[in-house]
């Protein structure tokens, strides 16, 4: 079942902070290769590089290798080297009781494979309140008690208000921003990932200002979904009417990160009828209706769900390392991908929150053959 509105890729969101799962997504592709080798008689599994021009199909074409992890690690190492203080360290800013530790430590391990001497610190905002020192003369960041200098701060926290439990946490964020440490990301880069910015980019003649190549600008534009705001008084009523006519055709997304707070269907009607003044907290987006596939979701504690109808979302990882004064681009790369698959009756999409599973791609285009084989009784 193809989306009849537009058979093309549309961007759902663009994450500029804490882009998780680079450390795990490559394991899934390797796992699928191992499982298919184990499970299938008479199969021919081929690896298709993501940047290859595929001309023929095998019985199974897996998109491999997935270099999101190693390329993210290379970018961290290159940033560390540009900081030019070999004795410095890398700080991961994490949330308390972090559960996604294998993903994060895979990145630490990948960096240390490249540069064994780089030291790491994994700290929460609360720990940094006690341990972070900003030298007010040099603006170097140091950590107590080791006095290690921090070359790079990599944020895996700080993208929702709940991560800042008090003013002291905000003070830490300010000190990091003022410091000479390289931030991944800076505050301005974090703000660029706001949904309202994604919406603003779809306005006429905006991207053309930043992407001079008209063909490339047009390609970017072709990935935009129909997306709109409720702040502009000239279009507000028209956009509300659009929702009233077809509440099932749209999703309302809060400007905030974090997931789980989107409004659908009857909740949209409720919002426009009873709390229209709250609409400014949201942007509206056409509901993308992707083709479905049948798969088996493997979850812990024997709670697997077999042969269930699902949809896929694709994330593409990119790294960018620049000098903003000289405009030098040290790294601008597309590095890997993330596939998240969820049953068609779940609106939300977080793996950590249990809504969806990690997946990878079979691009052999042989009419869902794997699903049929796995549905056979043996």
């Amino acid at each position, binding site marked *: 079942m193809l989306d009849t509105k537009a058979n093309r*890729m549309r961007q759902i969101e663009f994450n500029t902070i804490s882009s998780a799962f680079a450390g795990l997504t490559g394991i899934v592709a390797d*796992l699928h290769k191992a499982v*298919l080798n184990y*499970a*299938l008689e008479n199969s021919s599994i081929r690896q298709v590089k993501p940047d290859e021009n595929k001309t023929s199909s095998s019985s199974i074409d*897996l998109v491999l290798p997935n270099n999101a992890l190693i390329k993210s690690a290379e970018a961290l190492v290159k940033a560390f080297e540009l900081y030019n203080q070999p004795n410095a360290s890398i700080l991961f800013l994490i949330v308390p009781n972090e559960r996604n530790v294998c993903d994060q430590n895979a990145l630490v391990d990948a960096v240390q494979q490249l540069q064994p001497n780089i030291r790491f610190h994994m700290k929460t905002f609360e720990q940094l309140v006690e341990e972070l020192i900003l030298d007010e003369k040099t603006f170097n960041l140091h950590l107590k008690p080791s006095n290690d200098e921090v070359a790079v701060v990599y944020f895996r926290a700080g993208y929702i208000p709940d991560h800042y439990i008090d003013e002291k946490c*905000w003070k830490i964020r300010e000190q990091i921003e003022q410091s000479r440490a390289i931030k991944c990301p800076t505050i301005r880069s974090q703000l660029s990932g706001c949904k309202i910015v994604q919406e603003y980019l779809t306005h006429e003649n905006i991207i053309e200002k930043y992407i001079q190549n008209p063909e490339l600008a047009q*390609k970017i534009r072709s990935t935009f979904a129909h997306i709109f705001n409720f702040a502009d008084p000239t279009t507000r009523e028209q956009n509300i009417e659009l929702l009233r006519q077809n509440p099932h055709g749209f999703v309302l997304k809060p400007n905030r990160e974090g997931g789980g707070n989107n409004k659908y269907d009857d909740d949209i009607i409720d919002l426009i009828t009873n709390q229209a003044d709250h609409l400014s907290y949201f942007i509206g987006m056409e509901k993308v209706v992707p083709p479905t596939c049948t798969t088996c979701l493997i979850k812990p504690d024997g709670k697997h769900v077999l042969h269930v109808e699902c949809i896929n979302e694709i994330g593409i990882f990119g790294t960018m390392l620049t000098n903003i004064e000289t405009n030098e681009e040290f790294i601008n790369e597309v590095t890997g991908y993330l*596939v998240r698959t969820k049953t068609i009756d779940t609106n939300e999409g977080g793996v950590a929150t249990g809504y969806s599973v990690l997946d990878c791609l*079979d691009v052999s285009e042989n009419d869902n053959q794997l699903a049929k084989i796995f549905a056979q009784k043996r």
Partner: protein
Amino acid sequence: MPTESSNTMSLRWPIEDIIAYAKRYALTHGLLCLTPDNLDHATIVPFSLYPSPYSYSHFRSIWSIQTAYNRLYNRISLDDGFLEQALKSVLPIDDFVQRLWTTHRRTKHRQPIQLDIYRSKSSI
């Protein structure tokens, strides 16, 4: 594609056996997260048993423009005028965004190197 029945792809084992194999692979290769109730315990991150069918040309269409997206987001992040205009409607009503914005605006930036690890999410 094979046509003779003897060459047709088929399952070698009952599916329960394949699931057990896949879970063992996940456990031994670190496809894990900690359990919510006990942070000394790890469990598998949910995954699909086999890859999902996908159109290679659709995949390629977003793969091939990611570096342009990288550059676009890098450039808008450096343009305070753009950001202020884009965030205009949200700043008065969203304390969090406003706090980040004011922190950014009053900060003297002392590091010209900017590192970003982006992820662009798309769907057909």
